[in-house]
């Protein structure tokens, strides 16, 4: 009996040790405005670029659709949105961020607009090692009221050699094999997908689940009529 008690105590200690791996979360964000707005759709603008990377903004942009869709939102196709804005004479992401949100809603019917800013993107090579970092901040704005619903930022850094000795070679082979699409050969692009998980899905910090994840019950209060009003 005494022995069993001892084991039990050890179990608790062990579980505490495991827990320490994910402790010290920052206080949860205030989701009052987010809940009140309950957006069904998100228009993601190309990121404003604060880096020297030319390909960074659009490379990062291509990673956002999947996590946001899987969170249950309708995500407007990022490439076609970009082309639509460019066809209307707005070619620079920084300018796109200046378009009045009411105008964006008029053209797309979006409930909310996501404004990302790319702060770091790319790799620094030092001898046989490379350090890749990506840093993004993002603000979600209600397209009907212009009110900020949520904002967050995340940074991720990866050391190629620390991760896997064969990393660089594997990457080069991968680049040769998959000639068709070279996203997999850009380490910053691969990090971006992990960064999105932190940015959008961290509990208490990320986005609230959208209507397609929550299910039809939560969808009911906001019928499709909101869009026909706009027309």
């Amino acid at each position: 009996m005494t022995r069993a008690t001892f084991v039990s105590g050890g179990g608790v200690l062990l579980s505490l040790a495991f827990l320490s791996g994910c402790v010290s979360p920052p206080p949860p964000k205030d989701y009052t405005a987010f809940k009140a707005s309950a957006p069904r759709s998100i228009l993601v603008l190309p990121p404003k670029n604060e880096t020297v990377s030319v390909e960074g903004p659009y490379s990062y942009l291509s990673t956002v659709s999947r996590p946001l869709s899987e969170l249950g939102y309708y995500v407007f196709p990022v490439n076609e949105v970009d082309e639509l804005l460019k066809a209307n004479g707005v070619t620079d992401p920084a300018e796109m961020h200046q378009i009045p949100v009411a105008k964006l809603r008029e053209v797309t019917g979006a409930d909310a607009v996501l404004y990302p800013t790319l702060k770091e993107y790319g790799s620094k090579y030092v001898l046989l090692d490379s350090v890749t970092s990506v840093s993004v901040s993002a603000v979600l704005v209600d397209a009907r009221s212009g009110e900020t619903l949520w904002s967050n930022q995340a940074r991720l850094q990866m050391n190629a050699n620390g991760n896997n000795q064969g990393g660089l070679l594997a990457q080069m082979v991968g680049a040769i094999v998959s000639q068709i699409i070279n996203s997999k050969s850009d380490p910053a692009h691969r990090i971006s997908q992990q960064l999105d998980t932190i940015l959008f899905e961290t509990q208490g910090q990320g986005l609230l689940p959208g209507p397609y994840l929550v299910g039809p019950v939560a969808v009911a209060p906001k019928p499709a009529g909101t869009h026909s009003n706009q027309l």
Partner: protein
Amino acid sequence: MSARVVPAAVMVLLLGGCAAQAPKALYGWGSYEDLIYASTTKADGVAPERQIEIMTKDRATIAAAGQRLPPGWRVHLAQLYAQTGHLDQARTEIEAEKTAFPESGVFCDTLLNSLNHSQKVTP
């Protein structure tokens, strides 16, 4: 005996608190993310015809797996059809997006308008 079982159960319960709940994908993605990347970055120009081919194959695979096509998928395909002069197929895909995702209605109407406009302009 039962005293040994309880801590393990508690541990699992506690650990569950910081692990993401098992994510069940809402959609089948196929190559769509890579195609978005190819389009937004204009990297290595994957020709529209090749993209259509990939997406047509993906559509069959995704349907066979009983999964849904993700938001924007049909609009991307529509854009490829429009680029290659298949305007009727482009319209069909845009209409299908509206049906699958009513949230896309205004955007799709904007695209349909510009599609009709471009058709008038081109000989």
